[in-house]
């Protein structure tokens, strides 16, 4: 029995089943599963090359129908109370639920038609309302700030302005922090190590004065270790740091440039870093 319907007419397998039940004038609670399954399968076969997604959904239902058909042939299962379980029950529930929503969608559609005859309005605030600026509550605005607060701020501002550009001091030209001469420091370390091929870090530092000098010496030692000129050993934490020259030739041939190139760049970075907070301070007016 051919079913003269098109795929597009159905929202899905449940829709098709409802249609079959309808045209066959079947009691939904007593679906003749054999007839319906045959008709359903015939329809799915006719679908042929339709959209694979849709087809697969129809195939799942076909499988379900066949499953029910098989169960109908077997002795009925019993539930907890010993009653026969109809293998069609689940399908019937699904069909009824689907039918309900399908019906509701028609009801909604009617509501939509009625509601579409209403016009709403766009927001249109009067200019005066849009441009309204609330009166200022000065007690709240000023809060606990006093004249003294203002005065202190003013002095701070002046002090900062003074620190930034001193109109008088600036006439003497730039006063810059004396940079450590990387080159001479390298020469010093080199000479020291040639004379003392086995020494320790502390002895090397004895003649260093400032923190900066110590840091630079430490950096030079790290570089020498990295290039395999010296070997460094420490037996325990905070213990003596033993330094031994392992490649005297390399040490002698070491040029200052290998260090100063790095050093100059380091210096530049240091300067930038110290200036940054100032720049931030002088950034754009915000908040």
């Amino acid at each position, binding site marked *: 029995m051919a079913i003269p319907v098109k795929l597009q007419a159905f929202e899905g397998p449940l829709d098709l089943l409802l249609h079959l039940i309808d045209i066959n004038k079947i009691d939904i609670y007593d679906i003749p599963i054999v007839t319906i399954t045959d008709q359903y399968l015939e329809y799915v076969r006719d679908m042929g090359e339709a959209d694979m997604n849709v087809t697969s959904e129809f195939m799942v239902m076909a499988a379900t129908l066949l499953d029910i058909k098989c169960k109908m042939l077997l002795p009925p299962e019993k539930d907890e109370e010993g009653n026969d379980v109809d293998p069609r029950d689940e399908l019937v529930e699904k069909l009824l639920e689907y039918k309900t929503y399908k019906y509701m969608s028609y009801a909604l559609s009617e509501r939509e038609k009625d509601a579409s005859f209403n016009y709403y*309005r766009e927001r249109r605030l009067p200019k005066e309302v849009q441009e309204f600026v609330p009166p200022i509550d000065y007690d709240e605005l000023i809060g606990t700030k006093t004249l003294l607060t203002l005065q202190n701020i003013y002095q701070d501002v002046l002090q900062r302005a003074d620190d930034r550009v001193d109109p008088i001091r600036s006439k003497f030209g730039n006063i810059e922090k004396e940079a450590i001469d990387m080159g001479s420091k390298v020469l010093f370390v080199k000479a020291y190590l040639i004379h003392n091929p086995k020494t320790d870090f502390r002895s090397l530092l004895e003649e260093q004065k400032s923190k900066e000098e110590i840091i630079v010496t430490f950096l030079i030692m790290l570089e020498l270790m990295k290039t395999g000129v010296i070997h460094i050993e420490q037996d325990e934490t905070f213990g003596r740091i033993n330094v031994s020259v392992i490649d005297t030739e390399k040490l002698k041939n070491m040029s200052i440039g290998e260090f100063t190139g790095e050093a100059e760049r380091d210096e530049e970075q240091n300067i930038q870093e110290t200036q940054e907070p100032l720049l931030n301070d002088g950034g754009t007016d915000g908040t």
Partner: protein
Amino acid sequence: MELKQAMAATEAILFAMGDSVEISDLSKALEMGDDDTGRVIAALENKYDSEDSGIRIVRLDKAVQLTTKTELYDYLIKIASAPQKPKLTDTVLETLSIIAYKQPVTKAEIEVIRGVNSDFSVDRLITYGLIQELGRKDAPGRPILFGTTEQFLRSFGVKSIADLPAPGEEKLEEFKTQAEEEADSKLGI
């Protein structure tokens, strides 16, 4: 505040705002309790019932909005362009009705009822502003829960979800009864 003054203020607010206004916000502006605001709205509704009035109040959940009276559409259409409304296909409507009646609901739940993949319909409904994500379900994969929007209420002329025509369960019972009756008559009882 005097009732008349409150009515005028409410009308002015609803008129200027255009969009729906929460009753709680109205109460704040009017400096009165929600109950009193409710009475003001009721008084306005009563006033708009008059034959010489072209507007009315729509209640949307806990908000209210002004709109033109439905029966005056013919006059409006002569002068204004018809409001744009999305064309809802049967497929999309079917999905919408499931979301409307079962919300909050996940896509998987919709698909179980419809028996088909519903990605397209759900996407379409979000684009139309008729449904929205309500959060995520406390279930494996934490699927997104969907529900209807205020625009849905407006578009379908419903005050709130509770006001939707003939709730599902009742209708389901009705269908069952129908089916049973049919079955009975077939059996000749």
